Structure formats: structure tokens, C-alpha cells
């Protein structure tokens, strides 16, 4: 109690500790490692039930993709003029979600935002899984998926196809595959010290061997730490531009085209902001669930959550500003096609999709101006869900509804999704959750070594029971 008196209460209010409960380093290792050590803590039944459900949904994805590959794109609702509909909507949606991970790991790392430590591991994992889900769509949306490898600059002697480097789809291939590779490396590098911890704690031969192999002989020597920190910093440096570039490149798919509603220079920053927006919302959803089910309240604190909500508020407002700009430019350009497209977007047959997106992405996040609301777990859980609904609609509105009514009214048509469209999307959600559940069971959900680092600092700022006071 004495220590707390020395602290400025205002500082505590604005900058509360990031690790609560005054744990020792060993406590932290125990706390995080036992979750994934079934030999010590029993895997709960509800985990298996949940995994069973998500795995079945993943099975549904497999069935849908097989049906698609065997029958043709016609099993989806795509048509002429709507060549891309749920497929590319889902692709951009998942890629967008995948943005939070790298942002948290790389940019926040470079800006020395310590609060990233408890959430970065799961956010990075989420990034990888989201990019995997995203990758399914460009592959299977091709009419002949068995030829999709022609998009890669690999030798294909059958037709000597040289890629068209003017096509944004080729840029996509490079952007997304680079992003995935770097994210994977970054995630793995951060994992190495923790894997060594797990190796050291392992009681079975298999765990010893597997963790031993992947921890790359980590012994925690100062030399290791020095190399590790340097590698991590370099990877953070490489990743940072990727956060901005990947979604910029994805937005080029649309921005470089001639279609009104697509042909917009504002897209790169607008897409990046939207991606961070949706990514944070998705991290939020998953973290809240993990926090509840695994009792991680003292590691994922209200400060973490509130900071994320602030980012959601900022990016949501940027997205809202972009919407306004689009409307202004459509009017200001004097271009009849552009004007029509935006009027049609808001008041045409798909008004409901557009207004769902405005509501979910712009209006609802404004609630976060109020501290009471942004620190309320239920409010943030619901908003994290509506944000992702809104962001899905944003992609649908941009991609599909712009195509339904472009230049020639004679080719206007409506888009109706089929049950295959829906089941495929549902299936990717199943895949995403399955991968996340497997990750949560086999790898540390929170970066043990980094939290220890945070704890090392906080030990001096917030000694003893300080955390309990605030909690």
C-alpha cells in the first residue's frame, strides 16, 4: 500500500500497468505454458467440442471447393457483369483482417508501444490464418484453378506463359505471398525464445524433440538475445512497409481499373485504414474470447483493450472520411458515370448493403468517444463484431455493387449469392477458427519472453500490489 501512495494517481489512471497481479517470471511461464501442456493441465471438453464444430465447418469448405472445382464457377452467383462477387469480397475481407497482426508486431514495436506484448502473438497468428483463408479465394475463383500457378513466375513449359506485369493481379500475387512469408518469419522469430521455454518444460520425448528442433538451439545466452533482438528489429523494419503496401496493392485491383466506383485514387490509404480497422476488430473478438475462457485478465488488461478501441475509433473515422471524400469527388468530378455509381450505391437496389456499411463502420465506432463505453467488455465485443460485418459489406459494396451497374445500362444485372457462396465463406470462417484453436492448444498464446520484459520494467514502476489496486 505504501508504494501506491508514492505514485501519482493520475498517471495510474492514464497509464495503468500492463501486467497485473504482481507475478514473478516463473509465474508468467507457468501461467502461459500450462494452457498448452495437456500433461499438466487437462484439455477441457468444451475445447474438443468447439474444435469438432469448427473442423466440420472446415470440412464443409473442402466439400464446397471440390464441388466448385469439379463443376465450375457457375455454382456461385457470379455473372456477367458481376465477374467478382463474394469470392473477391471474401479475399479482401480476410486480407484486411490479416493486417492487424503485422501492424501490432512491427509498427507498434518500432514505436515502442509496450502494450502490444500481450496481444502480438495471437494477432500475428491470426494474420497468418487470415491470409491463408484469403489465399483460397484468388486460387479458387479462377475458372481453371489447376492452371492458377501460371500467375507465378515459375517455368511452365506447356504454354510458355510469361506473366503480365502490368496486371494488378500479378502484383497481388507478389504482395500477398511476400506478406505471408515475412509475417511467418516474424512470427516464428518471436516464437523462438518461447519455444525454448517450452522445450525446457517438456516432459514427453516428442515435445522435447519438436520444440527442441524449432527453438533452433536457443539457450538464452546474451549473444543469442543480441542476435535475436537485431533480427527482430530488422524483420519489423521489413514488415512495416508491407503493412501499408499489401492492402495498397490489393486496392490497385480496383483503383487501376476503369469501372466507376473502382477507379478511385483514394483507395490505397482508404483500404489500409479499413484493413487495420477490421484487423483490430477481429483481434478484439478473439482476445475477448480467449480472455474469458482462459482467464487471462491480468495479462490482457483493460488498458490493452482500450488502446485497441482507440485505434478502432481512429481508423473507423478515417474510413468515414474516405466515404465522404468519395461522394464529394463523385459530385465534383462532374462525371456522369461516377455520379450515378455513388447515388446508386446509397439509394440503388443495394442501398441496404451500403447503409449497413456506413452504420457499422462509421456511426457505431463513434461510441468509443465515451470512455465508459470503450471500457465496457460487452460493448467492445459487439462493436468488434459489427465492425467486421461492416467491413465485409464495404468490400461487397465496392466490388460487387459497382459491377452491377457500370457504363452501359443494357448490361446491368443483379447479383444473387448461391448456397455455395455462403457455405464457402462460412467454411473459411471454420478454417480460420480451427487453425486458431489448434494454435491456442499447441503454442503460447502470449509472448512469454516479451511479457517478462514488460514485467521487468513495471516491477520498478508498479511494485507489489499496484496492479491489484487498479484492477
Amino acid at each position, binding site marked *: 500500500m505504501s508504494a501506491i501512495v508514492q505514485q501519482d494517481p493520475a498517471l495510474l489512471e492514464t497509464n495503468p500497468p500492463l501486467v497485473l497481479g504482481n507475478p514473478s517470471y516463473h509465474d508468467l511461464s507457468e501461467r502461459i505454458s500450462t494452457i498448452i501442456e495437456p500433461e499438466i493441465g487437462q484439455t477441457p471438453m468444451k475445447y474438443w467440442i468447439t474444435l469438432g464444430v469448427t473442423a466440420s465447418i472446415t470440412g464443409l469448405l473442402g466439400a464446397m471447393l471440390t464441388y466448385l472445382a469439379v463443376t465450375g464457377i457457375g455454382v456461385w452467383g457470379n*455473372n456477367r457483369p458481376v465477374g467478382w462477387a463474394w469470392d473477391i469480397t471474401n479475399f479482401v475481407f480476410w486480407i484486411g483482417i490479416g493486417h492487424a497482426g503485422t501492424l501490432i508486431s512491427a509498427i507498434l514495436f518500432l514505436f515502442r508501444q509496450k502494450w502490444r506484448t500481450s496481444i502480438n502473438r495471437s494477432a500475428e497468428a491470426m494474420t497468418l490464418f487470415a491470409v491463408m483463408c484469403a489465399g483460397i479465394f484468388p486460387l479458387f475463383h479462377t475458372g481453371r484453378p489447376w492452371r492458377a500457378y501460371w500467375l507465378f513466375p515459375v517455368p511452365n513449359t506447356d*504454354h510458355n506463359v510469361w506473366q*503480365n506485369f502490368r496486371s494488378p493481379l500479378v502484383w497481388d500475387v507478389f504482395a500477398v505471398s511476400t506478406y505471408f512469408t515475412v509475417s511467418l518469419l516474424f512470427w516464428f522469430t518471436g516464437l523462438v525464445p518461447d519455444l525454448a521455454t517450452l522445450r525446457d518444460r517438456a516432459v514427453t520425448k516428442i515435445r522435447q524433440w519438436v520444440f527442441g528442433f524449432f527453438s533452433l538451439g536457443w539457450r538464452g545466452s546474451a549473444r543469442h538475445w543480441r542476435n535475436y533482438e537485431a533480427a527482430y528489429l530488422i524483420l519489423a523494419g521489413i514488415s512495416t512497409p508491407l503493412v501499408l503496401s499489401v492492402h495498397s496493392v490489393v486496392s490497385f485491383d480496383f483503383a487501376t481499373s476503369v469501372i466507376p466506383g473502382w477507379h478511385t485514387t483514394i483507395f490505397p490509404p482508404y483500404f489500409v485504414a479499413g484493413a487495420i480497422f477490421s484487423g483490430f476488430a477481429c483481434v478484439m473478438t478473439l482476445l475477448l474470447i480467449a480472455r474469458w475462457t482462459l482467464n487471462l485478465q491480468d495479462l490482457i488488461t483493460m488498458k490493452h483493450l482500450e488502446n485497441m478501441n482507440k485505434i478502432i475509433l481512429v481508423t473507423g473515422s478515417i474510413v468515414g472520411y474516405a466515404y465522404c471524400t468519395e461522394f464529394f469527388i463523385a459530385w465534383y468530378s462532374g462525371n456522369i458515370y461516377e455520379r450515378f455509381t455513388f447515388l446508386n450505391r446509397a439509394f440503388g437496389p443495394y442501398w441496404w448493403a451500403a447503409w449497413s456499411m456506413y452504420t457499422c463502420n462509421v456511426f457505431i465506432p463513434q461510441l468509443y468517444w465515451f470512455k465508459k463505453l470503450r471500457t465496457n467488455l460487452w460493448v467492445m465485443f459487439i462493436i468488434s463484431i459489427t465492425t467486421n460485418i461492416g467491413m465485409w459489406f464495404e468490400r461487397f459494396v465496392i466490388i460487387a455493387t459497382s459491377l452491377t451497374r457500370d457504363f452501359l445500362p*443494357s448490361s446491368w444485372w443483379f447479383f444473387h449469392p448461391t448456397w455455395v457462396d455462403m457455405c464457402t465463406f462460412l467454411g473459411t470462417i471454420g478454417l480460420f477458427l480451427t487453425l486458431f484453436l489448434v494454435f491456442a492448444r499447441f503454442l503460447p498464446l502470449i509472448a512469454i519472453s516479451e511479457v517478462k520484459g514488460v514485467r521487468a520494467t513495471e516491477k520498478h514502476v508498479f511494485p507489489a500490489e499496484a496492479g491489484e489496486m487498479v484492477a
Partner: protein
Amino acid sequence: MSLINIIQKPNGPKYWRSLDQLANTPQFREWIKREFPESVTELEMDGSSRRTVLKLMAASFGLAGLTACSRPVEHIFPISKGVEDYVPGKAYFYTTVMSLAGQVAGLLVETHDGRPTKIEGNPDHPFSQGAATALAQAALLNLYDPDRSAKVLQGTAESSWEKFEAYAKSLSLGDGSGLRFLSESVTSPSLKALRADTLKKFPKAKWVEYESFQRTNGPLGGEIAFGSPVSIQTNFDKAKVILALDSDFLGLDWTTPLPTKQFSSRRRVQSEEDLENINRLYSVESQFSITGVNADHRLRLAGSEMKQFAIDVAAALGALPGLNVLNNGNDRRSKFLAAVVKDLKSAGKEGLVITSPRQPPIVHALAFLMNQTIGSLGNTITISKATSEDRVESGVDALKALAGQMNSGQVSTLVVLGGNPAYSAPADLQFPPAMAKVANSIHLGPDVNETAAAAKWHVPEAHFLESWGDAATGTGVASIQQPVIEPIFGGRSALEVLALVSGSKDTKGHDIVKNYWTSQWPAAEREKTWRKVLNDGVIPGRTSLSLSKDEVKLKLDLPRIQAAVAAEPKAAGGGIEVGFVPSASVWDGRYANNGWMQEAPDPITKLVWGNAALISSATAKAKGLEDGDMIALRRGGMKLEAAVLTQPGQADNTVVISLGYGRVRCGRVGKDAGFNANLIRTSDAFWYAPGFEISKTGGKYEHATTHERGLAEHMNGRPIYREAIIEDYKKNPKVIEEMNEVPPLHSVYSERVYDKGYQWGMAIDLGACTGCNACVIACQAENNTPIVGKNQVIRGREMHWIRMDRYYVGSEDEPRAVEQPVPCMQCENAPCENVCPVQATSHSDEGLNDMVYNRCVGTRYCANNCPFKVRHFNFLNFHKEDPQIMAMVFNPDVTVRMRGVMEKCTYCVQRIEETRIKARAEGRREIKEGEILTACQQTCPADAIVFGNVNDPQSKVSKLKKQERNYAMLAELDIKPRTTYLARLRNPNPELGV
């Protein structure tokens, strides 16, 4: 003997290899048939044997096709020795002729190794002039219709030609008092000759001609006007002012390309002189027709009110002394009438009043009278006395009389030669039950249709590409119908069956036709002339468009017309008027099993795979109806349930429904498509039936259209389709260019210049194009474009490489409509090309936007980025359900695309390459101007499409593109389309406003 039997006939000594084979003897088959009548089909036509047959056919047709031009093929041999001048894989062309609804068009049939693969117009035939209508071209697919009749049927049991021949001989016809023939309109001179012989042989026999759409009212009108039936020939090219009274001469009322050829010749404004010569078309009609689309002024009027309108016009022209028209009204009709009368009077002999075969004889008589009054009779319209034949009657009244005789037991033998009267006869005649009362009824038809079901015997009819025949136009232009393939399903022609039934000496079609014609020629030149006729497709000396000289002898009988006018009952008002029109797609139902036509969008409604009860927007609102609502149309005891579709510009209080749909006994394609309008059609109100009641049944129906309804039917202020009033254009020829959204664009990059060698381009004259769909079918046949089916059209996946866009201009009640053919624009800065990740679409040196199917992975990015949406994606394997026989219709010069690849118009690159090869083979480098015709250009009846080398300033296309009215659609995107449009110039009457 059918081809199938020939192929299955064993050659060489008969060793048997198994008991199964031994058992496959005629005796065994007979026994099987007797024991298990149901299983016969399986045994004879199971999948494997059919495949074998088709494989063999493909291999062995080479000779069949080759020899067809000179002598009949009775047997088929493989080509074991080379045939002179025959190059395997090269296309050969044969002339033939087709009749539809009593009109005749000369055709040119392209064959590949003995398979007919495309129908084109015969350039030497004056009624075709190289063009062919959509219906004529699509007749090719009927040839390969897998559901065609392949068997002689006695009742429902299978029989054989031999048995039928025996049966025909056994008929005791006596003097023919119980013998009746029922056929469609006969245009064949040799059939007419054989008919005359037959009727001579059976002095009490009678012959009735009937079909859904028959041109009997014109001749009957002639009878009122001139006291004798007449043949009519119209010369639209000589007319400056045309009043079309319900006449859809550019669409359904003529089945030859001639009226469009003639009319459009005065709409293609290319010089100062053309500006003065442009014609003006007034159209008065109830439903929106192609003629209405092309009219400068259109008045919507219920079909039954047309008669009064004709009387009023005639009176106002002063043609009916004593009758005054009260012309003080200020409504649309009065203003229209006054303007028309004034214009017709000033046009004088360059005027033309024309009406429709769907209008009663009195309107035709009045039209003759009006033409006489303004002085155009003999110039824009010529008539001659028509010969009438004894005991041959035409039309619905003749059919009604026949049905009466059948019901009263006067008919013992009915021979139905073609057609489907059990389906197409008016409902009040109760034709199928009447047929049941006839002891011996024989039906010759291409498929086992409703009539086949009602007849005691059904025999399969050969397609016109399979059998010998001939046909002559009303003006006497005669052609030989030359077969290009053996009867695939073993059918015979009407000529052969008539010869059989009447016990004629010659029974082979070839002999009958050849003897008929050669006997008219000097003996020494017979063979030579015959060959020349087959080559040219027209009988020499009979190629004229004008009628014979006895037209002078005909004198108009005014008192007779006046008496007829006075005797006409006043139009019975009340209720809803139902109008019947032949379908632009399936005609009277004979194209119901034809996928090309089922999927060819109706020119106005854009409906496919069905018809609808068309109703004006105002009437729909008044009755509380919406698109897709099921309604019941009732009159007397008749009832038809059909789905509503609102049609802007249709006369109020009318329902228009096209014939030919709702077939019950039909093949896999046409079964249950649409609603059968014949169920409420009666002989007394054959075309326009007033007094109907409409009630909503509460049901809903999903129409398949290729255009979205509502907002998408208008251009929304976009300069897509451009037109100008001719006076404005004269004052300011830049008026079209000024419609551009943005000033000319300049790229910041140095752009590729296409100025070497051939640079292909196209110009489409919107002023000439009528929107007839001929190019759509030509393209489909040439480029192996798949048929996708109704559900896929509803999903928005139709595949036509050239489509006909239709927009409405103006209010919902009084709109105009415009038609715009849209193929690939072959943009120089093609937005599709830079987005393809695998370079499956890229530019050729000659400016073609090439599509490489093999490379395509199917991202569909190109289609998304195409501002014209002319790229079509194979969403599914659209050829998966093609019957095996469909393989025969494909053009071997064009790849059949697999699923998952993009396709689009190529400017018929196969034709370009073929011509290039030909030019090189002939030792010249240069491809001559006009040597390459794209499929759409070749068949266009309006000559609206011109293709050629835009790098040659002397080429036709270059000259057209230099015209002031040339514009590029969506030029504001700086995509530089190679296909440009020539804006339409309208010529409205200033007195009526625009």
C-alpha cells in the same frame, strides 16, 4: 433407307461372332417388337450404337456432301480414292432455298466435310441478296435436333417405311371424295404440279393450306379491291413516305430479308444526296414491333381499331368520296392522321401504304385504294393477278370447313403434309378430336408433335437440307431446294410422301423436281442448265423482283370497296383485346426445340425461353398487375393462364401474346417453355380478339430476360446510342460529336501507333440497323457460341458475342425504342488487356484484341474491366449436355471453349486468317477490300455492319469512319474502340414535333 440402317448394314460375308450378333436379325427384331413393344427403342437406339452411328456419319459424309450438288445420293461410301477438287477440311458452299410462311428466300449452305455448318443468304437470290434472317439461319439447328422424329409410327407403335408404303397402297381412295390434304403454304412449283395431278386423279379430293401465320388476307383484300385475288410486291426502296398500318414489314410480317434491304437503303445516309432521299416511316400498331422501333412516328392503336383508322386515312386522302373524317380533334391520333395524310399526298407516287397479313381483307383493300389515290400503285407497290387453283383453299376458314367435314364424317382419309395443325389450329375448331374421327389420318412432320399424337400414322419429314424440292416467290423467282446431307433420321419430303400416297410414277424427290424443271427446258441444254441452276440457286430468266405484266389489267373497283366498308360491322368494344403475333424466336412453334432461337432475345421485350402476356404500363397499373404476375385470360369458355410483362408503348387495354410457345409434345428444349396462346385463339377472331376478361390468379412466374427491367431500359442521360434529327444534322454536322462527355483526351505517355499493314476495324450504322437479330444468330452459328438455358440466362450468363441492346427513349406510355448491336469494340487501349495476369488477351499487330483460350485461367478480371461488358465467361461446361449430334453443327474453324475460360467477339479472326491463306496461295500478298466479311456483316439484311482495313483510306470502313456521324461509344475513357457507330438520323415530320 435411312442412314442409320445403311451404316448398320453389315458388309462382307456374314460370319457371326456371338449369339448376340446372330440374334440381331430382322426376324429376331420383329419378334422382339411384337413381344416387348416398349423396349424396342432401347435396343435400337441405345447410347453406344448411336455414338457409333454418329462417328461413322462424321467420317463418311464427305462424299455425301460433295455429290449433293449434282446427283442424288443413294449410298454412302468412304472416300477410298481422291475426289477431284475436294480438299478435306475446306468449306464448300451449296445453294438451296427455304420457305417460311409462304415466303421464299434463297440460301447458301456452308458444309464442312459433308456436314452443313452454317446457313447464309444466297447473294444471287433477289429476295436474299446475301442476307439471311435469324429464322432461316437457325433452321440449321433443326436439322441436328436430336428429338426429331426418326421412326414411322402407327399409333404409338413403331412401324417402318415399308409398312407405311404397303398401307398407302392399300388405301382405297376411289374418286377421292373422302380424301383431304392439309399442308402449310405451298411455294413449291413441283409440289403444286404434283398436287394438280393428284387432284385430277381424285376428282373429289380437296386440299387445304393452313398455318398459324398465313398471308391470305392480302389476296382476299385484292378480291374486294380488284375483284380477283392478287399477288403483291412492295418496293420499299422506292418509297419516301411509308405508312405502316399494323405492318411489321421489318420484323415478323416478312420472312425474307428483302424489305429490310430495301428500307435500309434509304436510311444509310452517306452523302448529301442521301440526306435528301431519307425516307419517313409512320407506324400504327398495337404491340411494339421492330417496325415501330424504326419508325419516325409511331401511334399505338389496338389492332381492331386499325380498320377505322384506315377508313379515316382513306377518307382524309379523298379516296372514299362521300365519307368525311371529322378531323377537328386535338388528340394524338387526329394530329398523327392529319400529318400522315398531308405527307402521303405530297409524296405522291413515292408514298406507300402497307398493312399486315394480320389485318382483315378490308384494310388491305383500303391500302390498295390509298396507294391508287396517291399514285403509288405500280411504283412502290405492284400487284398482279394471282392464279387460283381448283379445290385448293387457304386460311383459317378453309381449315374450319375441313374440321366441319371431319366432324360430320365426310373425311375418311386425311393426309397432313407438314405443319402441326393439332397445336396451331384455333381452339374453337377442336382439331385433335376431329382428327380422331377420321379413319385414316397420316401425319408427315419433323417431330412427333401434337398432330402426330392425334394421327393414326406418323411419318418423319426430312429437313429441307436433306431433301430435294423447289420454291418460287410470289414474283416467280424460283430456286431448287438442294439437299446437302442424307436424311439423318430417315425422313422423306412432302413431295415424296404425296407421290407415294397418290401413286405417282416418280417417287424420288430428286427425280420429281428434276423432271419438272428440265422438261421445261430445251432438251439439249437440260443437263447444263440444271447444273447451272444448282450452282446459282436461281432458275435463269426468273430472277425479277417485279411482277408480271397483267397488273395493268387489274382495275380498282371503288364501289365494291365502298360497299365493303359500309358492310363492315363497327368494332365490338369492351373488355381487353388480345392480339396474337408470331414469335420472333420460335415463330409458330416450329422452332420450339431450337436452342438458338429459344435463347435469341426477343428484339423488343428481350425475353428468352418463353413468351408473356404483354400489357401496357397504364393498363397494368389500372389492373394492379406487375411483371411476373400470373393472370387468367377468359372469353366464353376459353381460358389461358399466362404471366404478365409490361411493355412500354403498347396500346392500352390490349394484351399481346406471341404464338409458338407452350408446346406439350415437344423435344427437350422447348417443352413447357412459355404459354400456349392457341388455347384462346378462335377462327372468328384470329389475330385480334376483343372482349377478354383479365383476372389475377395470385401465382408468380419468373421471366428470363437479357436486359434488367426498369431503370436499365433507359440510357440515363448517357451518350451511348446517338441519334440526331436530320434537320439538326444538316445545320450542324458536329451535333453527334458534341455529345461527347469530355473533350478529346491525350495520353501523357507516347502511345503505340497502329499504322502498318492491315488494321481491322468496323463501323455499325445505327441508322440502317433495324434490330432484327440476324447477326446474333449468325455469330452464334459461326463461332460455336453455347446455349446456356433459361436458368443461366436468369443468372445473367448468356453468351452471345454480339448482342442487341434496346433502350427506350421518352415516357413510359409513348416511348420510342432504339436498337444497338454491341460486339467487342476491339479497343486499341483495351482495358481488358492490361489486367489479364497471364496475357491471355493481348493485342495483335493488326489491332485485334486477341483472346487466347488456352492461356486463360479465368480470373474474369478482363470482363470486369470491360466497359461494354462484351466478354463472356464459361461459368459452367455449357456443352456438357449437348447431345452427341450437336457436334456436327460446330464450325471446325473455331475452338469449342471449355468451362472456366473467357470468350468474346474476335472479328471472326478465322475468316481473316482463311482469307490471308487464300491470298497467299493465290500468289498475291494483298487481301482485297471486301474480301473478308465477318459473320454478322455478311448476314446483316440492312447492310449496317461494315468491316475492313482502317489503314487503307480507300476502304469502305475508312470512308464511313470519316463521316461526321461516326462516333466511338465511351470514347471518354480513351480506349480507342476500333468498332465505331454511325449515329442514326431520324426524319420526323416537323408538324408532329420530335
